């Protein structure tokens, strides 16, 4: 063979592809979609069921959840004393595989309904190599329904998992990559769901199920870590309270969402938070503060024409208000754009345009929003 460029040689040597009966795109779509939906189902179903359980638990529990304070679960010798509140995560990962131990929490949510989740993603390269999502459910709500739903959802692929600290678990293997979901019955009413996903096994010290078990065994409870944000706001007046919080990772468009509601809307669990899908922004009744990259198109949920105005503090703002929706978009602050979305007629009544503009003035974005070390407690 004559001298040639290596790339040309490689292309020429593989130019004529032999027919393949081993590649089946429709099958890849089916199996990949099934894996994705299974993963979502195992997390979102529990969230939905936890919400249903909360509703069944009655007004007393709701008041406790939404009082702004933090409750402690009734302690027992086998039950960790978990406390819940919208701005606290009461557990931490004592051990994580590989580089995830050094990774910051990519997103966390602590909702007023007792659903608390944290997720770690190592995304230092193009491919997000490993992803561990830990979700803990409030032991004060009825999750026996959740157990049945989980069992039903996972029946096809699940097997009995290890006994962890004296409590049973279930393991559901997911065929794509190295992934699966460990569902651990922490105590009579509390559940922990650990979703482990890695693009290759080198990220895991062992099999995915062994990795999940080790994460479960090393969970630390009672740490009461505050959920930090790249911005803070002054708590709104009246009956509005924070009912849900969310941080999204830097791979997402959003840097943070802070949600407020009132006692008439106890549930603010955005189920999509715990899924891999983008959240359905701004459609749940409530008042939300979003921080996202500047430069994106200014769009309000109601798609109405934006009017230019000025806040009482002198900031340029774009607004659109109707009887059922309101939206305030501030000019970029430290490279990020602040949006306040008010969804639902009761919320518009609670925070009309003037109040929303004044509320917008209370938003303080940290000078370096993408630097997690500078993040702060979101409600002043």
């Amino acid at each position: 063979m004559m001298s040639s460029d290596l790339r040309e040689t490689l292309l020429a040597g593989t130019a004529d592809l032999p027919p393949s009966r081993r590649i089946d795109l429709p099958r890849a779509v089916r199996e990949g979609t099934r894996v994705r939906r299974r993963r979502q189902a195992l997390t979102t179903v529990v969230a939905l069921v936890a919400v249903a359980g909360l509703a069944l638990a009655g007004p007393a529990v709701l008041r406790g959840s939404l009082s702004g304070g933090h409750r402690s679960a009734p302690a027992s010798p086998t039950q960790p004393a978990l406390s819940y509140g919208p701005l606290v995560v009461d557990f931490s990962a004592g051990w994580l595989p590989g580089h995830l131990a050094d990774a910051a929490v990519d997103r966390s949510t602590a909702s007023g309904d007792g659903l608390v989740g944290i997720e770690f993603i190592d995304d230092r390269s193009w491919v997000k190599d490993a992803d561990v999502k830990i979700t803990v459910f409030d032991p004060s709500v009825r999750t026996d329904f959740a157990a049945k739903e989980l069992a039903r959802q996972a029946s096809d692929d699940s097997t009995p998992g290890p006994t962890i600290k004296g409590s049973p678990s279930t393991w559901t293997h997911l065929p794509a990559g190295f992934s699966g979901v460990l569902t651990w019955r922490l105590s009579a009413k509390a559940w922990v769901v650990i979703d482990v996903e890695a693009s290759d096994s080198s990220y895991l010290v062992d099999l995915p199920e062994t990795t999940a078990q080790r994460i479960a065994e090393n969970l630390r409870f009672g740490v009461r870590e505050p959920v930090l944000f790249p911005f803070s706001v002054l708590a709104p007046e009246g009956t509005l309270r924070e009912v849900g919080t969310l941080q999204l990772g830097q791979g997402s468009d959003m840097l943070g969402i802070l949600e407020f509601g009132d006692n008439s809307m106890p549930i603010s669990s955005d189920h999509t938070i715990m899924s891999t899908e983008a959240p359905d922004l701004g459609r749940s009744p409530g008042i939300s503060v979003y921080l996202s990259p500047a430069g994106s198109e200014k769009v309000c949920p109601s798609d109405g024409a934006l009017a230019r105005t000025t806040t009482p503090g002198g900031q340029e703002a774009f607004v659109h208000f109707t009887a059922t929706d309101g939206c305030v978009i501030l000019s970029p602050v430290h490279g990020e754009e602040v949006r306040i979305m008010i969804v639902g007629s009761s919320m518009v009544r609670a925070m009309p345009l003037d109040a929303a503009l004044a509320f917008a003035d209370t938003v303080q974005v940290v000078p370096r929003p993408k630097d997690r070390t500078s993040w702060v407690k979101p409600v002043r």
Partner: protein
Amino acid sequence: MNDLESYAAGRIPALRRAAYLLCGDWDRGDDLVQKVLTDLFSHWARVRRVENLDAYVHTMLVRRAIDERRSWWGRKVALTDADASPEVVAPPDADPTLRMDLAPAIRQLAPRQRAVIVLRYLQDLSVEETAVAMRCSTGTVKSQTARALVTLRSFMDITMPVDAASVVGGSER
């Protein structure tokens, strides 16, 4: 067929070529492509946010290939294959000289050497991009590239790329 399916359908030939070079035969390479396609559709929410999708998918392919070689299953299959010395299946219409040279040459390369060749010379990634994809230092990419090229030159008459020639004989990190 949605956008991602259309994309995947269009990328299959390129993925098959890369997988063939990574695995050393078409059948194993096609199995690898099938797994990567399944992974792709199971992670579509992430995939939607990727700017350089070609690089993303080829990184998935390369990591899958390296990882499967590391695994117990991969070692077992590789050992079995080596013992049996199976004929590499080449496309019937390919240049017979190329078929004769390329297949045995790439089979002489270690998995990571195949990976650097695919990423750098088939996918045209830079040393830095290749290092990120392979989760190693740029020095390792250069040394693996140099070793791979030396091996390939012993089987094929190829011109040494300028950047690779400069690191042959250099210190390995």
